[in-house]
Structure formats: C-alpha cells, structure tokens
C-alpha cells in the first residue's frame, strides 16, 4: 500500500457508545409526536403552533433528491426516534449534579465540563442526543449581558426574543429538511449579544449523538444587536453504527447595524465504514441575515465527517455595506458524499462577499461545491470574489464545481475562479529532496492548500482541524 493510502485509513476515534439510560419517545412522526415533544419541554403555546405549522408544510414538500449530486436510499421518517434524552434530574444547580457518565463522555471527546478543567476562554454548551446537558461559564457571560444557554431554556426564559427572531431567517417552509427541523427540533444553543457588547470569550456548542435509533434535530439562533460582536464554534461527533442516522439542523444568525458574527464549524460526524455502511446524513440549513448597515457574518467550516453532507451556509446581505464570508474545507474519503457551498444574496448597496472553498476528495468519494452569488438590481457597487479549488487524491473519486452567478446590476463586480488538480509531483519532489518523508510532505501540501481557511478558525481549533485532516487522510495519498 502506498504511503498516501496508508494515511487515510485511521480509525474513527469518537465511535464509542456511552452506556446511559435514556428517556425516549416511541419512534415515528405525527402531530402527536410533535405535541409530545413540545409537552416534554413544557413549551409555551406559540412554540407548539410554530412546530405544527412547520409539520403541515413539511407534509406538502418533496425531498430534494434530484438536484444535489448525492445518492442515498430513501429515509424512512417513521423509523426515527425524535426525542431521546439521558435520564437525569430536571434542573442542574451545578455541574456536580450532571450524570458523571455524561461528564466522562464529554471528557473523552476532549470537552471537559467540570469547573476546574474547563477550557479557559471558551464557554461550552454540551448537547447529548436531544437535550443540552450542561452549559459552562453562564454566570460570567451573564455579567456582560450575554445570554448563552440551551434553546429549550431560552424558549422558557426569553420567549419574547424567540418569538421575535425564530424562523425569520429560515422560514418554516424554506426547504424540506428545514421544515422537518422546525417541526421536531429538540435542543440547541441560543446566543444573544446585546447592543455594543463584545462577547468576552468564544462560545461553542458540542453536539453528540449517542442513541443509534434517534436522529438529531438541533436548532441554533444567534442574535447580535447593534455593534455587538461574537465568535461561535460548533463541533460534532457520533458513535459508529451500521445504520444511517439523520441529522437535520437549522442555524439562524441575525446581525444588526455594525454587528459581527463569526460562526465556525468543525464537523466530524461518523462517516460510515470504507464501504459506505452507516454514518450520518448531515442535511443542514444554515443562514445568516446581515440586517443592519456595516454588519458582517462569516462562516468557516471544516467538514470532514458524515456519510453525506448537504449544507449551504448562506448570507443575506441586506444592510448597506454589509459583508458576507464563507471559508470552507470539505474533505471526503472512502464512500463519503458532499454537496456543499454557499449562497450570497446581495441586496444592499456596496455589499461585499468573499468565498474560499477547498475541496479534497479521496477514495471513492464525491465532493461538490455548489454556490450561488446573486446580485439584485438595487445592490449598487456589490462585490464578490470566489475561489474554489479541488484536490483529487486517487482516480476513483470525483470533484465538481457548480457555481451559479446571477447579476442584475452593472456596477457590481463578480469574479469566480476554480481549479482542480492533484497534488503536484513537483511540490512533492521538492519536499522529498529536502529529506521530508512522503507522508509529511503530503500532509504539508494539503495543509498549505487549506491554509486560507484554517487561518480563519480560532487558534485552538485551527490546530485541531489540521490534526483532523491528517488523521482523516491517513493512508490515501501516494
């Protein structure tokens, strides 16, 4: 086996299962299921209405199986458990009351939740199957007026904010999976940064699927008021099961005047085995609205896991001078499939967007970039620059680029560039003749290829992402 091939076949190290008693509802989906979820969470009436409306929309919609460059057997939506929570005391006065088994699980994943071991400078919300089990540094954030809590908690404590913003960026009838999520979402994170506050630490949510029968439907809502500033990061893992599991999340971001939201994702769901058996279907809708003048939303994603990724984090650039950014590294190996990209909708004047997408395909995988840059007639002086590069490792994989560019304003300037190639022999030779091993050379080149994206990640995660990429590719380059 050549050394690059050796480089890709490392075990998925987060594939363990936590043995914990769960509170589950019967599988299947109906209005009753939704009422049950809503009741379990003691939700106010408006939330139930929201869910039911979404559910009724969903019933009328069609699964998007034709246009994306992905194939998968039909999902049986009646064979999923829509709510699964580890059994524990309802309210947690402090970390001591959280099930030690759960704390151990998150520690094993590298996310310490106990006070003394907490990551300095990063507040974490840990979501296990359908519920949030703990949120760190809540009190400290509260002092600054920042609200960072689980979504369920927000629904109960800040219903006014939820009512005002939920579903305004991603409407319940937006697409098939968003409608499904709106109907059955269980937990997620809620972030509210009040006017003028610069969030003192990084916020992050860690998602863990544990139950083999459940799907995960999380909901995240981040609001940055005038002049507020926040950096948010999410990470995700799941155990190794032979069965495919569905993860359909919705993330909504709202940035008002002069606000800035930076949203980073390191996605490492279980990708299935080499033959493509098992793994997570990651069907996610992420969208940010730059509502205010001079606002900015920046998406950074490192997508390495999931059997299938279907995800297009987008920006609606409504406010004048607002900025949208999208930095992505998508790695697919073995039988993984990814159809991912972004949408930049230029509505306001002098809006700018920047897209940097790096795709790496190895094994028998298929990796597509699909993006839309749309400049509306009123978007005077809009500017977009897009760079999409693909790297192919091996001759059985595919790399595709599908950029849509629609321009209706002549003062706009839109540029798109894409390249596809394999690792250059010359670069490899250069490094090899300096005495660097084949494997290290390849790893260096790949990291260099992704550098434009990695440098957008918060420091600790950039290191993590580089390591992850090396691990994922182990054995496939040569």
């Amino acid at each position, binding site marked *: 086996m050549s050394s690059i091939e050796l480089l890709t076949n490392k075990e998925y190290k987060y594939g363990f299962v936590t043995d914990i008693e769960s509170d589950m509802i019967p599988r299947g989906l109906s209005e009753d299921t939704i009422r049950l979820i809503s009741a379990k969470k003691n939700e106010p009436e408006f939330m139930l209405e929201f869910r039911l409306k979404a559910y009724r929309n969903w019933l009328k919609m069609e699964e998007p199986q034709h246009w994306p460059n992905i194939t998968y057997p039909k999902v049986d939506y009646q064979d999923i458990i829509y709510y699964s929570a580890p059994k524990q005391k309802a309210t947690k006065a402090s970390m001591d009351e959280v099930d030690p088994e759960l704390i151990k699980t998150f520690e094993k994943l590298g996310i310490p939740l106990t006070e003394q071991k907490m990551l300095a400078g990063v507040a974490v919300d840990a979501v296990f199957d359908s519920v949030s089990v703990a949120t760190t540094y809540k009190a400290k954030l509260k002092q600054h007026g920042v609200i960072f809590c689980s979504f369920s908690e927000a629904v109960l404590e800040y219903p006014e904010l939820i009512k005002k913003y939920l579903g305004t960026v991603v409407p319940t009838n937006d697409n098939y999976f968003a409608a499904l999520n709106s109907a059955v979402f269980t937990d997620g994170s809620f972030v509210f940064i009040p006017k003028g506050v610069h969030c003192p630490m990084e916020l992050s949510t860690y998602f863990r699927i544990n139950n083999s029968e459940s799907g995960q439907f999380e909901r995240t809502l981040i609001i940055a008021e005038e002049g507020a500033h926040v950096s948010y990061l999410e990470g995700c893992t799941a155990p190794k099961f032979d069965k495919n599991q569905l993860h359909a999340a919705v993330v909504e971001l709202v940035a008002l005047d002069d606000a800035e939201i930076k949203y980073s994702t390191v996605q490492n769901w279980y990708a299935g085995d080499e033959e493509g058996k098992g793994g997570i279907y990651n069907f996610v809708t992420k969208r940010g609205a730059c509502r205010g003048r001079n606002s900015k939303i920046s998406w950074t994603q490192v997508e390495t896991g999931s059997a299938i990724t279907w995800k297009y984090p987008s920006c609606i650039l409504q406010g004048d001078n607002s900025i949208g950014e999208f930095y992505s590294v998508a790695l697919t190996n073995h039988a993984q499939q990814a159809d991912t990209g972004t949408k930049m909708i230029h509505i306001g004047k002098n809006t700018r967007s920047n897209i940097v997408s790096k795709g790496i395909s190895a094994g028998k995988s298929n990796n597509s970039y699909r993006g839309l840059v749309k400049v509306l007639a009123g978007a005077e002086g809009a500017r977009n620059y897009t760079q999409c590069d693909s790297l192919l490792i091996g*001759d059985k*994989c595919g790399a595709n680029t599908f950029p849509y*560019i629609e*321009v209706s304003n*002549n003062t706009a300037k839109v540029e798109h560039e894409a390249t*596809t190639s394999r690792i250059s022999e010359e670069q490899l030779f250069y490094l090899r003749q300096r005495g660097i091993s084949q494997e290290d050379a390849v790893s260096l080149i790949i990291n260099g290829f992704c550098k434009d994206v990695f440098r957008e990640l918060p420091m600790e995660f950039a290191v993590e992402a580089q390591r992850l990429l090396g691990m994922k590719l182990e054995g496939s380059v040569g």
Partner: protein
Amino acid sequence: MMAQATKEKSSYRAAFEVMQAEDARCLPAWLLRLRETAMERFEQVGFPTTDVEDWKYTNTGAITKGAFAPVAADARVELGADDVAAFLAPEASSRLVFVNGVYRAELSATENLPAGVVVADFATAFAGEHESVLRAYLARPSDPEVDGFNALNAAFLREGALVYLPKGAQVSAPIQLLFLSAPATQTAAVFPRVLVVAERESAATIIESYASTGESRSFTNAVVEVFVGENARVTHYKVQRESEAAFHIATTNAELERSGVYDLTTITLGAQLSRHGIGVKLAHEGAECWVDGLYLVGTGQHADTHSLIDHTSPHCTSHQLYKGILDGKSRAVFNGKVFVHKDAQKTDAQQSNKNLLLSNEARVDTKPQLEIYADDVKCAHGATVGQLEEEELFYLVSRGLHTDLARNLLTYGFAEELVEKIKIESIKRQLDEAILNRLHARLEV
C-alpha cells in the same frame, strides 16, 4: 397553457404529415423512419420549459406561442445574386446558400473544390454516392434524452448541407454555408441541418452564417454535427446575425478522433432570443479543441450559450473563452460544463467566461461547471461579471481622451482578444463594424 402546447404540437404534426407524404417516394426509407421517431419524441417532450434546469434562465414561451409553421417546399422567395452578395464571405470559393431553409443552387458555388471533397445539399447527396455517408452519420442511434428542439429538427430533416472531406484532403479556401431568412408570407420555422465529416488527416475551414434580409420574425432551429477524424483539423466559424425579431435555437455537436483538432468560434450578434447548445466530445487520445465565442447584445435581446466539453479519453486538451458585452435591457446566459470522465487522465481543460455590463438594466446569469472523476488532471475555470475598470478609464482620460471615447476604446479592447483570433478578414471586419456601431450608437444617445 397545456392546451396551447397541444395545439402547437398538432400544427407541427400537420405540416409533418404533409412533408412525409411528399417525400415518401424520393427520400430513403431510413430517413422517413428517423423523422417519424423524432416527431414522436417531440410530441412526447415538447419545447423545454424553465422548470428544466438547463433552460432555467431562458423562456421559450414566445416560440411556443409564436405560431411558427414549417415552410412549404414550394414557398419560394425571389432573391437574386445581388441580394445575397452582402452576406457572402469573399474568402470562400465554395458555398451553399439556403433561403428560408430551402436550398438555392443558383446562388451556390461548389465547383472550386479539390478532388473527392463533397460540399452538397442533402437532396443532391441523398441521390448520389454519398448517401451512405449521410446514412452512417445521421441514422446513428440518437440520444434518448434529446430535447424538444433537437427532436423537432430531426423530425423536419429534409434540407441541409453535407461537407465530406476524404482522407488527406486539404481545402485551403473556407467553405461557406449561408442560411438566410427572408420575409415570407407566413412566420417561417426553418430547420437547417449540417453534417461535416472530416476523414483522417484532412483539413478545412467552415463558415456557418445566419442572417436576415429584412426585419423578419423567423424561427431557426439548426443542428450541426461535426466529425473530426484522426489527425484531421476542422476550423469552424458560426456567425449569427439574424434580425432582432428572430428566434434562433442552434445545436453544434462535434466528436473528435485521435489527435483531431476542432476550433470553433461563435459570434452572436442578432436574434431576439438565441440559444446555442454546444457539445464537444474528446473521444480519443490527443484530441484538442477550442470553443470560443463572443456575444454582443442590446435592448430586447437574450443570448444563451450552453456548452459541454466532454473529456472521455486521456491526454486531451480543451480551451474555452467566451466573452459577452451587454448593453441596454439585454440578458445573457452562459452555462459551460467541463466533464472529465474516470479514465481521462492527463486532461488539460481551461474555461473562462467574462461579461461586461454596459448598462444598469442588463443581466447576466453565468454558471461554469466542472465535473471531474479523474485525478491526474489540470482543470480551471473562471467567470467574471463587471463593468469597465475605473482605473483604466482614468488612465485614458488623464491622457486627454474624452470619457465616452475612453469607454468605447476599453470596450473595443475587451472584445479584441476574440476578434484577433479570427483568421478570416471579412468576418473580422464585420465584427469590428458591429462593435463600433454599437459603441457609436451609445455616443449619440
């Protein structure tokens, strides 16, 4: 809407039946069968709608509603040599002229050709020794997914041009195929068909031109097929300058054998709605193609280009450069796909689409696509949409040029990259004129 579509289909069916009956004796049976199959296909699929991804940005409703009817064989338009002179390329020493889809021998010239080279209209070819060539290439099993326009063209396959280059034939002077639309009593639908077969080591230049003698509101639905043999070289210019009321739907398909070279340049100036579908298949090692084009459109015009460069074999090279200049309330669509199959290693594919918007009402939708399933390849594509660079303008103005003149100079320069590539003086001159006219019109406004 449904009723409208059905009515449309049945009007084509009526004309089709008449044509089949007329041709039953004089044309080969395989052709009649081929037409029947195509007609059935057309009736099944109809004209594509904007629900189809490939037609998302181009609405063909006006053609469906346009009440176009295939021209009857005896509908003759009086047109003399003087009337067509303006549309002829003086460089070409042999030519075929079609008026409203009907071949006009008295306007054509086919005598100055090297031995063995055939440039003939289909009626002549069907009767002669090259019937086997037509049969071999036209009657190939067609793509079952063929769209309504292509099916309709095949259903009305009657008049057309055959260019046959035997092994080693070198034709130095260009061959012109001129398709003229002249005002007729009815709104004519014409279905030109061109077949170019270049056997190994042959070479030729073909000028395919479309023009209107008046402001006729016609519907042209053309299909051109080019087969480039081993080491053969075909240079192909397609110049479309039909009237601004016309509808022009065209398909150009080329297939390249080992080390074959195909160089296509398309110029789109006319038509209210034009759509050009291009498919180039690099089917054997070492084949190389250029697919370049310029579209220059103004108010009321819509120009759509869809291309597929299909790399099915290793060691092939493709180059594509499309430039667009949009003025007034015009619209352009570019969709270019480069497909690299699994075994097509060492592919080198470059694609670029650049658009210049001169007015704030113009709209461009561009979608360059790469689909790649081989790893040892070099593929790149790029697309830009923008207006003239402020800095470049400033530079020229600072040298004392009037702003309008500076703008025109830069616009001219934008197009020049493609104009320069054209080896035929008369086309080059025509194009220069068209660009300058458009620019002068701007100055006067």
